[in-house]
């Protein structure tokens, strides 16, 4: 399978998983606070395609996509969202705490920016243990405004840590616009370069652009040159609800028509089609993926809840 077709397959999994989970949220009472990744799939898949399985990735509140793109187990994720025993955190974490250490996805936390120092710790351990592996931290544009993120950039540059910080700039922190949060002269690039890290900006709605620039930066990161990759990508759904929220009226640039025109999945599909991939192949991938996702949802619905006494377990190792 070509790399692009493989990327299409992965992005389709991320998209359909979120769509079907959103449907499930609308149908049933799922009590796990959720932030959907729809629209930003090119970032997680593009970055993950530039990593090895041994590399680490850590994420944030919107990490279903980061988890799946790194190879995280779909069944355990869906079970976790439904609060089931078989979930990746046995129901104690939920949507905002994705983890699958077997594929190097070593955790996600929803306190904005907090994952960046933690990811630096992963990179520190990789360097300390003299491996050639790297760590990726996924954060949003909102989290990138937290002080600890800038502190960590300095620490990473000082200690030459193999750390890549991916800022997914989806234009909003919840619904707050960038220009309501930053002076007009604010420049992520100048700040990052000023601290001493490498910087690239990618079109987060474009898989090719993301994965090419991620690969370029990661080759330096592997040699101890920490970097920031800023990806501007559209968040198609509401901040934290299984709905499309255009009626809220806060969106300016990323209105529905533009989101559909710039949709990363559609772009890859169109490219594959123009490069000679058959409609049938692409549709089959989509259908097979939906069947698989629906199967896992059905499995998770039937799966048992954790036993009541586990409320008290695992506070300490």
């Amino acid at each position: 399978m070509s790399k692009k077709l493989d990327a299409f397959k992965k992005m389709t999994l991320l998209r359909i998983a979120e769509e079907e989970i959103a449907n499930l949220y609308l149908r049933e009472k799922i009590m796990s606070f959720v932030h959907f990744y729809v629209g930003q799939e090119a970032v997680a898949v593009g970055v993950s395609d530039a990593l090895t399985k041994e590399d680490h990735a850590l994420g944030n509140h919107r990490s279903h996509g980061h988890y799946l793109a790194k190879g995280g187990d779909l069944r355990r994720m869906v079970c976790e969202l439904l609060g089931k025993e078989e979930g990746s955190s046995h129901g104690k974490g939920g949507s905002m705490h994705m983890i699958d250490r077997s594929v190097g996805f070593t955790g996600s936390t929803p306190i904005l920016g907090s994952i960046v120092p933690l990811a630096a710790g992963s990179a520190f351990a990789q360097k300390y243990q003299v491996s050639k592996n790297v760590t990726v931290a996924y954060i949003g544009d909102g989290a990138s405004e937290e002080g600890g993120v800038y502190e960590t950039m300095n620490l990473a540059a000082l200690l030459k840590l193999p750390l890549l910080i991916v800022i997914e700039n989806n234009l909003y922190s919840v619904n707050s616009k960038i220009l309501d949060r930053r002076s007009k002269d604010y420049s992520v690039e100048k700040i990052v370069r000023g601290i001493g890290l490498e910087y690239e900006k990618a079109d987060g709605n474009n898989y090719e652009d993301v994965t090419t620039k991620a690969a370029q930066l990661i080759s330096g990161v592997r040699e101890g040159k920490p970097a920031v990759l800023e990806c501007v990508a559209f968040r198609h759904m509401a901040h934290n609800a299984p709905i499309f929220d255009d009626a809220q009226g806060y969106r300016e640039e990323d209105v529905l028509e533009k989101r559909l025109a710039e949709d990363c999945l559609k772009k890859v599909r169109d490219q594959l089609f123009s490069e000679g991939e058959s409609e049938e192949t692409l549709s089959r991938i989509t259908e097979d993926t939906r069947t698989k996702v629906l199967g896992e949802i059905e499995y998770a619905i039937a799966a048992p809840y954790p036993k009541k006494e586990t409320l008290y377990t695992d506070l300490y190792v």
Partner: protein
Amino acid sequence: MSEEPRLLTYTEALKEATEQALTADPSVFVIGLGVSYKNGADGTTAGLKTLYPNRVLDVPVSEDAFTGMAVGAAIHGLRPVVHHGRVEFALFAADQIFTQAAKWNYMFGGNNPVPVVFRINVGRQWGNGPQHTQALYGLFGSVLGLKVVIPSSPYMAKGLLASAIKDNNPVVVLEPRWLFQTKQAVPEESYELPLNKAHIVREGKEITVVAYGDGLHAAREALEHIDGIDVELIDLVSINPIDEETIQKSILKTGRLLTIDTTNASFSVGSEIAARALRMEGVTFKSTPKMLACPNVPCPTSTALTEEYYPTKIDIANTLRVEFNKPTLDTKLSFEELHLAPLTTIQ
């Protein structure tokens, strides 16, 4: 002729535990502001940078980042010892200590150890005022997922830090700066003390005194001024967990309780002990539980005001004397006793 016991100060004891951990386990490293100095971290890391240049790291003045990096390193297999010279600065890293390290294993459903040690200096020191003397014991004790110990002497400091570094959970070691120059016989070989057990310093039948840290030190000295009242003195050692079993056994015997805090009375450890004691099975009190603590104002700077602030050995002795209908003492403590950290050799 018996050999002279080997006396170490509190800070030397902490350094020895750290050095022995660095030697024993290559995954241990030390990180914090100034830990690489010749007399780093009040002497608690003195000389370690020379021995282990790549494992003793000075850092930018960025507590959130370096504390979080240490937590992340612990999550990914290392054993960091993080040093914060003042608790007020550690609070910059509150998210990483309270919300990340403390919750990590639970929120991922277990099997996710975070073997990090936070060494945090707390409490009184002359002239340090409202923003350099907080202890915040209650705050740390209230965060589930942390283990929290308060060494009361050099012997306790070495053994508790050794255990903290070996533990697979985040452990906060709150180190009262007031005790740094106290001395005690400390074994040279490595040893560990339990992180979850109170220690009975003196057995007695008439009243249970629960203290910790520098309050325990003052309580121990108060024993010389109580004319034979049969005190059971308990060094609490850990405020998370609190060793209820040891306290319960003691109060079942004595029926009386005095708690000593060297921080504000509100939300203090003493309040927690008294509240738990009142609910303990079979416990009936012969008199209302008593508490000594600092007043509910920040610690001021002027010695004219701070001499009223911390409970002294005479305050403790007099509280006990009143309890047992003995005349109170009006001993005046010297300026040095009131305001300068003790140089006492603890037996």
